[in-house]
């Protein structure tokens, strides 16, 4: 039936993970088709022998008329997005939250500092100066339309599964909450993809910290789930004695202004008209968006999995977290530029590299519609390791959330290219040294959606 009733019921419908999180609104319409039919049956039962028929003698012919009426129903279901914004992960690198010797050193976008040896730690007597003193981290952010003030435009209300506002190394200054409630209003400067909007927001954290966070951001995105944000704001709140952030004997009341630069992945933004566009008609900017791509590799290096059997078939692995491949409107829209939140490449023991937001350029070639695609690519991981990965990936679409792949490539570079990483920073994987060699691997991608040419917005 009727979407109106369905949407008010809530729509935690069965289906994929999108539906499980109530990200899809289902509308139904019922139609009844009535067919009326009439059957005429003629029967002539003539007795053998001669007889007189005609005006005086009645004919033996009989006619039966049967009228039928059949009704069949048709239930049409339509699926729409049920959110203004849904984001899996967002991080913001903050400046101005504390003095540079006390800051966590979160790095650009709040994540590039993760691999610095002095990230979020102070060594007594050691001088320290970081630019990005704090960070904001949000997981599973959901925003839905808030239609108040006579349906005023572009208001949203939403929450994240967890949010942490970290101004400095000292834990008791961190403000964090499960399910913080946020009100946001977007002023769109550009109403085409990628959207550009100025977004004032106010958020309230409830547990374990109680706080208010007011901010204004300049948002660019989303394209293929990728967004960039420039933040300015102020946060103030309390950490009661003994809560998960506060190990001191007193209640703490941190407050701090901030400026920040953020990135978010798997972060999808819909404008209001898109809430009334069926999922199947939505425009897509990327050839591929996923949560995880994992590939087991065979290379010429000793296996990282088993020291007893270093020549086993499985020598290493490749992992991409939140990869995306954005189509570029050149070369028949097949050229793409991609990245991922993190990438890990382990060729074998002592040969591994890490990347944060690496740059990947490739060519997406669809071999078989809706099933098979080939992507030759070159990926440059510049931080914290520094290496180039030239390869090709053959993707087999199994479903909208699972894909299989075959990978072949060659990697060359340095595991500790930035000079910041200790050579044994991954412990069990051994001491890192130069990273070069060829590989072949088979992989599986989870929550990974491959799009085909007819779904790419440039092709519409």
């Amino acid at each position, binding site marked *: *039936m009727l979407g109106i009733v369905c949407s008010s019921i809530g729509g935690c419908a069965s289906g994929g993970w999108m539906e499980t999180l109530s990200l899809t609104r289902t509308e139904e*319409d*019922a139609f009844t088709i009535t067919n*009326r039919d009439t059957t005429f049956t003629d029967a002539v039962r003539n007795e053998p022998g001669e007889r007189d028929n005609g005006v005086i003698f009645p004919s033996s012919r009989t006619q039966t008329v049967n009228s039928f009426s059949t*009704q069949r129903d048709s239930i049409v279901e339509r699926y729409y997005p049920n959110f203004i914004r849904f984001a899996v992960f967002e991080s913001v690198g903050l400046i101005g939250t504390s003095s540079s010797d006390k800051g966590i050193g979160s790095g650009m976008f709040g994540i590039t500092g993760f691999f610095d040896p002095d990230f979020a730690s102070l060594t007594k007597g050691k001088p320290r100066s970081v630019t990005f003193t704090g960070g904001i981290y949000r997981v599973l952010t959901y925003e839905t339309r808030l239609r108040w003030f006579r349906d005023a435009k572009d208001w949203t209300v939403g*929450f994240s599964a967890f949010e942490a506002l970290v101004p400095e190394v000292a834990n008791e200054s961190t403000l964090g909450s499960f399910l913080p409630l946020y009100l946001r209003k977007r002023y769109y400067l550009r109403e085409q993809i990628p959207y550009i909007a100025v977004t004032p927001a106010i958020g309230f954290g409830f547990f374990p910290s109680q706080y208010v966070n007011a901010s204004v951001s300049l948002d660019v995105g989303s394209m293929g789930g990728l967004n960039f944000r420039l933040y300015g704001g102020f946060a103030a709140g309390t950490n009661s004695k003994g809560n998960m952030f506060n190990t001191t004997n007193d209640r703490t009341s941190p407050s701090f202004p901030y400026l920040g630069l953020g990135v978010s992945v798997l972060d999808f933004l819909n404008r209001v008209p898109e809430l009334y566009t069926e999922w199947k008609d939505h425009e897509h900017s990327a050839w591929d968006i996923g949560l995880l791509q994992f590939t087991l590799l065979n290379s010429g290096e000793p296996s990282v999995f088993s020291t007893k059997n270093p020549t086993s078939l499985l020598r290493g692995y490749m992992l991409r977290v939140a990869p995306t491949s954005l189509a570029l409107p050149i070369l028949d829209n097949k050229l793409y530029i991609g990245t991922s939140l993190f990438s890990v490449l382990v060729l074998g023991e002592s040969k591994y590299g890490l990347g944060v937001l690496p740059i990947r350029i490739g060519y997406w070639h669809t071999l078989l519609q809706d099933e098979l695609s080939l992507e030759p690519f070159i990926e440059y991981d510049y931080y914290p390791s520094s290496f180039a990965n030239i390869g090709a990936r053959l993707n087999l679409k199994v479903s909208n959330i699972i894909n299989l792949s075959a990978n072949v490539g060659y990697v060359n570079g340095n595991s500790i290219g930035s000079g910041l990483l200790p050579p044994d920073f991954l412990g069990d994987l051994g001491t890192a040294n130069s990273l070069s060699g060829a590989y072949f691997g088979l992989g599986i991608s989870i929550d990974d959606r491959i799009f085909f040419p007819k779904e790419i917005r440039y092709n519409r």
Partner: protein
Amino acid sequence: MNLKRYMKNIPLLLLVLLLQSCGLFQKILPKPDEYSFNESTRQSETIAGLNISNIDSVEYKADNSLLLHGGSVIALATYLNTNFTGDFTVNVQKGRGLKFSFRTTSNNFKDNQGITFNYTTAGSWLEENGNVIAKFDTVRAIVGETERIQITNEGTQYIMQVGCTVIYKGTTTIPATEYILASTFSGSRVLLTGIDFIPIRRADKRNTPQARAERVRW
């Protein structure tokens, strides 16, 4: 870990969890274009209403009453009842009048208006897919006076009744739907009261061609 301190925060956490769990969070948010009628009337089916025009053009007056301003379009429907009688008491307070469209849906109303009964101060007429199929010059709305309009959809047949008079009985091949859409002419103001949908037959999800085929297969 100081459990006592955590315990103090648990009611707050539970409240937040309750409010933000998927169904409830969506339910409590304002939906200014959605209405529900006959919720307090036991004898009647609950009717869902969706304003698909300007948000200020429709005023919710009571549990089964609406005031429609000029240029408004409201879709009314009950769950799965495709064969039904729609009953309205109409008072054209200003302007030309209104029209009722049925055998259509709110989703594709712009492209497919189904059968439309136009009820105006200059006379009434019926249209099927935009073509006039019957005119009733003597059936006129009178500004300020109330009139009862009933629309019955049953199978291929539909019946128009204004007051006590059945003004038209017709047949159509357009499939029956759950909807009646009421829309006003520009500059009109119309009060709808006593809105009721009396079900005749309910569509059945087991009666779709797909469901039938699956039953045969298994």
